[in-house]
């Protein structure tokens, strides 16, 4: 590594460091693909398609849609995402205000805590049969996503409000703040990074929930359904294409949240 194209690598040069990261990433991912390829060829296992077969399946899905169901890739993705987004918005709308209030009021927190602790350990995906069967394919999966995002978000917001430096509150009071002003001028803004952190964790779980719900309830016709039918039909390249899409969408949802979280945390200097 120390000498490439005759240029000596200098750990202290930013450009060199960047180049190194890039080179390593490329080598690493190439190796990964090669190993995958080798495993596929050597084992001869049809359940492990080669990267090329997977890529072709992906391209085919993109260009021609799913031949078995006559659905396009866009339809699959939008089915998954629309449920996901609605569940997320609902969770945000409920958990953030609730978390602020519960973080603020010890009495309310004490009262709600036992209920939260009783409901929280239920794996959110376990609600899927109940919500989907009793509330239908529109509201049901949305609520599953909601449950998945709700608890991590709520606990993070409560935690955030409680983690507030008591000196900030004292400072605000000596500057003339009323109780209400303390709440929305100190508690709310200082909870923002925690909200973002909760969103980040919640989105990851919510995304798992929607994929799981789609495996379970096929009429949702989302990307999880595509993966399951491809695997069911023994067409593994299609199944792996599904995995890739799920990975990319997962990366997008959580990655964006992570980015926002980092920016907020950095801007406010509050490292959560």
């Amino acid at each position, binding site marked *: 590594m120390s000498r490439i194209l005759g240029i000596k690598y200098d750990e202290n040069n930013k450009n060199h460091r960047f180049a190194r990261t890039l080179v390593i990433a490329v080598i690493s991912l190439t190796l990964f693909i090669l190993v995958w390829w080798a495993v596929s060829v050597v084992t001869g296992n049809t359940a492990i398609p080669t990267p090329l077969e997977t890529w072709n399946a992906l391209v085919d899905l993109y260009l021609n849609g799913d031949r078995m169901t006559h659905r396009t890739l866009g339809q699959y993705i939008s089915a998954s995402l629309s449920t996901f987004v609605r569940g997320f918005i609902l969770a945000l709308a409920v958990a953030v205000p609730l978390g602020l209030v519960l973080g603020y009021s010890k009495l309310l927190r004490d009262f709600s805590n036992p209920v939260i602790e009783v409901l929280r350990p239920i794996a959110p995906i376990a609600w899927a049969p109940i919500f989907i*069967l009793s509330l239908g394919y529109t509201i049901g999966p949305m609520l599953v996503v909601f449950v998945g995002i709700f608890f991590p978000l709520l606990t993070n917001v409560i935690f955030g409000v409680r983690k507030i430096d008591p000196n900030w509150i004292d400072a605000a009071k000596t500057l003339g703040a009323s109780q209400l002003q303390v709440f929305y001028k100190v508690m709310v803004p200082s909870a923002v990074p925690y909200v973002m952190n909760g969103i980040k964790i919640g989105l990851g779980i919510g995304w798992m929930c929607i994929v799981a719900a789609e495996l379970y309830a096929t009429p949702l016709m989302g990307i999880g359904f595509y993966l399951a039918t491809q695997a069911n039909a023994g067409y593994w390249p299609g199944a792996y294409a599904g995995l890739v899409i799920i990975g990319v969408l997962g990366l997008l949802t959580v990655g964006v949240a992570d980015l926002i979280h980092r920016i907020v945390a950095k801007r406010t200097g509050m490292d959560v």
Partner: protein
Amino acid sequence: FYLTQDKDKEINLLAGVNTDGSGIYIKEDIDINTMFDFSKPIPTPIKSGWEGKVFGTPGVSTIQHVQLLQIAEGMGMKFAAYQAGGDNNAPDTVYFIANIPNATAALGDEFIDGGSLWQPQYQKIVDDPKFKPLVLTNDLFPGHACCVIAGFHGFTSENEDETVRFLAAYVKAVDWVNNALGAGEGSAEYAKLVEVAKSVAGPNFTEQEIKDAMDTVIFTYGANTGTPLAYLDEQIPNLAESLVELGATNRTLSDLGFDNGEEFAERFMDDSFLLKAFELLDDPNGTSGISGTTDLTVAVIMGDIHQIAIHIANTKLGGDESKSFFEEYGLNVTFSGATNGPGVATAIQNGNASFGLLGAPPITITVINGELVKA
């Protein structure tokens, strides 16, 4: 989300769809004659052949499951869930795996010795060298009710007119199907029927499989007599009672306030719409007063050609310019697909679909467990 009046969340059985049309398949190397005594008019199961075998069914409350359950219980055996990697060697037990709803699943499953499925999945399975046909359910339970049309009371009571029109179009389609089958291969109708059936079944099936499959099904909305649901009147009370007896339900008929199956069936089944549909069909000006279109969602089992008539009713049989039967009656029908009967029952139950086509057992089980009709 739910309508609060008891009556509105009722689900009623409105019409028949088909009888017969499922089959039990078995591994190629199993001797058929060790499992049934085929010398009797109705083949009798032989206990030693069944013990310890693993059967795939499309779901615990489907008709296929219930029929296997009846066979096992009939021999005094338990019909127990098979656990992959678990201990599956109990005496006097037949095992099941309840997520084998199609040919792909059956052919891909490593555990099952056989199973029961509807057409054309059954045909596809027995065409594969891995499995062979054991017996058609027609031969075990002749004329047994299979799929029925169920309606959401909250919808039918408010939309009587649409309900009647829906059934009328459906009846027309069933008649068309039976005509096409009667006309036989070579006729244009038959060719059209096969074309629609192929698109319903999906690309996994050959034309021959589809044709073979349709031969084993009897399509019916009910006998065309004064009491159209007579065959169901006969079977549902018995079915309800035996489902409870077999432990396939968690509630009993008396939980719902009924003394016996007859009382239950009387409340559960409603042939009044079907009778009115007949009147509408008899009226030469029946379709003239209809203006505009009403949107309807109907839940169906994906890839099930038992339900071919509902797809025929939604097809422009005379080409793109013509109207489908539903359109003739001013209906714009959307299908919501489920993988099995319970899925359809659920779609009706949660108001997602106004009507659903599904097996008699799943709808009966759902109605009993959910207390969806009460005395």
